[in-house]
């Protein structure tokens, strides 16, 4: 084979790669929405402008409940005029990939980066390289300029469990999660504890499907629980929750949405959704940056009392009537949690 043909082959070989690169680059560029509300930002960083330059980096599309919650909270702050906002959706999940995204923002004068996924390694790397930038993410450890966003979803799951205990006829409830991580473990345990409070005979069956995004597997897991008699279920994780919604709709049983309001996915079957509201989290982080009190970075935790999590009921739920006494009990406990009189046990597993 001559040199010429090798050259020709090599050129052609580059075609698909270039194609891929171009497509991905275009995708990323148009997703990197420049949502600057105006202001334009003068040369001077603090020059009379009190809007915090903020970027939110999301691991998924804004149609995904997890990303929608983050996106909506950041958008609300932008509307109030508190921040200049830049948004990246569908950021790469791997550390190397997302590090580049975070670094780009850090480099271009962003003051606060909201890294809305479990991106500890990337956050630490960028925080070290750009000591002027503040980052909030889901990490296990703190750094001077990396704050932790906590997710006390279990508090709302306890209330959901109380309703589940009152609703179940088979005395069997179910829960499925992506993997055995503290967030999900605590959520499922609290759901079970809540159910046992209103119904002593409740038995909970649950499963880890081993994947966060595979909705088909999530649906299968919930179906397996339904086959075993479960008639009220909950899930933890995007794929498990989406799959769960489809399974309860088909079997016409009851379930609870996770993180965002999922009632549109199973309008008659969702009793309600366990919401994770990022409003108070982002507001606190932005205020801290503005007041120069972000460092040393802290753990932001806003539970039921502070509106960081909540149980949102779905008006369209029609599988059966929620017994009035169970509803009363739940509302009473909700008030007790808010006033600090009762603390939902946090069981995150081994």
């Amino acid at each position, binding site marked *: 084979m001559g040199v010429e043909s090798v050259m020709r082959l090599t050129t052609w070989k580059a*075609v698909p790669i270039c194609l891929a690169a171009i497509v991905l680059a275009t995708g990323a560029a148009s997703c990197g929405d420049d949502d600057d509300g105006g202001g334009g930002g003068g040369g001077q960083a603090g020059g009379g402008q009190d809007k915090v330059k903020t970027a939110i980096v999301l691991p998924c599309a804004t149609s995904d409940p997890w990303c929608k919650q983050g996106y909506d909270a950041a958008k609300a702050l932008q509307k109030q005029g508190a921040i200049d906002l830049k948004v990246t959706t569908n950021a790469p999940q791997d550390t190397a990939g997302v590090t580049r995204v975070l670094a780009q923002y850090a480099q271009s004068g962003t003051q606060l980066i909201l890294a809305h996924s479990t991106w500890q390694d990337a956050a630490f790397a960028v925080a070290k390289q750009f000591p002027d930038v503040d980052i909030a993410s889901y990490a296990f450890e703190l750094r001077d300029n990396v704050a932790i966003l906590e997710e006390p979803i279990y508090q709302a799951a306890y209330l959901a469990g109380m309703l589940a205990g009152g609703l179940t006829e088979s005395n069997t409830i179910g829960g499925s999660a992506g993997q055995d991580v503290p967030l999900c473990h605590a959520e499922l345990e609290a759901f079970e504890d809540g159910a046992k409070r209103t119904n002593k005979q409740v038995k909970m069956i649950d499963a880890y499907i081993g994947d966060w*995004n595979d909705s088909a*597997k999530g649906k*299968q897991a919930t179906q*397996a629980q339904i*086959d075993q008699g479960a008639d009220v279920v909950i899930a933890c994780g*995007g794929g498990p929750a989406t799959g769960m919604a489809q399974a309860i709709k088909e079997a016409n049983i009851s379930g609870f949405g996770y993180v965002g309001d999922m009632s549109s996915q199973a309008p008659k079957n969702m009793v309600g959704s366990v919401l994770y509201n990022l409003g108070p989290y982002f507001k606190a982080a932005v205020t801290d940056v503005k007041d120069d009190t972000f460092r040393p970075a802290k753990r932001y935790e806003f539970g039921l009392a502070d509106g960081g999590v909540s149980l949102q009921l779905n008006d369209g739920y029609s599988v059966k009537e929620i017994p009035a006494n169970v509803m009363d009990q739940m509302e009473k406990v909700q008030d007790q949690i808010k006033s600090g009189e009762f603390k939902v046990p946090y069981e995150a597993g081994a």
Partner: protein
Amino acid sequence: MDWSEIFGPDALVVLLSTSVAFAMPTALAAVGETVAERAGVLNLGLEGMLLSGALASFLVAYYVGSVALGTLAGVAIGIALGALMAFLSVTLKTEQIINGIAIVLVAQGITAFTFEKLFGGGEQPTVAGIPDVNVPLLHSIPGVGPVLFEQNVLFYVSVAIALGVCLLLTRTRFGLSVSAVGESPAAAEAMAVSVARTRWLALLVGGAMAGLGGAVLVLGQLNVFEEDVSGGRGWIAIALVIFGRWNPLFVLGGAFLFGFTDALQIRVQAVSGGIASTVPTEIFGALPYAVTLVVMVAATVWAGRDAQPAALGVPFRKGVGA
């Protein structure tokens, strides 16, 4: 632990009927990949074809409201990507592995981007599901009936197509050409079998099967689309082809075995106490892979010969000896 909750007759029927349905997208893609690999082309773009088929079928079903047209759209986009793969790998004779990976990357980028642009920020869109149909008489056969004959229409179509492709590969002239081209392209060419044409056709069939798999996943099971909804099924399908020793029936069996053990592990977890169980969940998670691997290795040893197409992954150039 009460094993009758898993292996009792009633429980087993439910377990089998859900697992065959859930294994279908992987099974279709794997059989299609067998055709391509038997012809000598390693199509690593399978995951991208599944994903694109899933999105295309979802969009058409969502906007047009027809499951049939949605399914056809999924197949069509699969064929289009199969053609792209064939153009790059057969016509231009470029590196197959790179072509395949590029197709996956392009598909992941485009599907996520398109879905975000159309639905980003709103509520998650859903399409109507398709009802299950009981096949007259057959569905009342105890055991087999509820497992195989109480599924949705797309399931029956898929079974027919998967078996049809198995026959195509083992019982027709085209199947013989495919094997000849994959084993010894120079000899095939000498016998007036066009290597390029056969490989093109094999890749189109492979793409169509993967696209159909995507449609079955989204329209037959989930009724929603999500980013990366294919969840690695394309990669598992490629592994199944190797484990199944390029024999379409073994591959099909392997896909269902994998699907069954996967459903089984979820069931065992629930019965054994879920989060309160003392057994680490990772052991359950590894079960489908372990079982499939063991069975396939045993089958290979039993069959006792090397089944890999000799020209797999090698572009064919006339006059350059094989």
